[in-house]
């Protein structure tokens, strides 16, 4: 990862836009990743979200398809 990546801005989606996006697409067409801690995920999460805590993301990138749009929260 180059240093310039630290300065790239990640586009954002509002919760409403996310809801519309999810309901218009098949779950197979996007990645929805919950990067919080397991205890938070257990309490509540967006249905269909995969849990990959931020600290594990680097080692678990293979679980997400880079070709699909990815929403993280």
């Amino acid at each position, binding site marked *: 990862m180059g240093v310039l990546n630290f300065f790239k801005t990640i586009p954002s989606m509002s919760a409403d836009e996310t809801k519309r996006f999810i309901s218009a697409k098949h*779950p197979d067409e996007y990645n929805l990743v919950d990067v919080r801690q397991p205890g938070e995920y257990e309490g509540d999460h967006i249905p269909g979200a995969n849990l990959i805590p931020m600290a594990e993301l680097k080692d678990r990138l293979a679980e997400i398809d880079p070709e699909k749009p990815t929403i*993280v929260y």
Partner: protein
Amino acid sequence: MLLGAGFKNVYSMEGGIRAWDGMVAHGVPEAGMAYFSPAADAEEIVGLAWALEEGSKFFYQGVSEHFSHDKEAQEMFSWLVSAEKSHEKHLLETYEKLAGKQPDFVKLRSKFSNSLDGSVMEGGIPVKEALDWAKDKGISESLELAIALEVNAYDLYVKMSRAIEDKQAKLIFEKLSEEEQVHLQKLAKLLDARL
């Protein structure tokens, strides 16, 4: 990190889960997955998923009997019974399209005798336990329980469709999640109408 790893379209949801006012699922990532883990192929998954639909059908049937004095509520829960029946039908049709035959329930019953009797509903809750809870509850509370359980079922089916390698089984889970999504939208409308 994702951008650096070659991910092209990455979005961060503004406000995180606190900003989300849609339905939420509960439980650890692997919740419910163990139910399907004894299944070796798509046919066995269809059998187990069918049994959950059967359990949900018994639940709605039981709840409709709680409201014998309320014709409107009874009709609503009877409609939910018929929705589960149609889920079961679609599930069997999907399998038939994929495999060219109906699932062999005699074989499935010999392997999963205790799991195929419809005693457990979607969300992994025993039907009897759910009916006991719902006995003295109102329509909205029974619908809320149904929605909570079906949201968890949707969550499970989406995650199973991503996790499972068998292509036919993957398609079965995709179909189940699609049906669950439509069903949830209808349940949410019913609940809105009652509130």
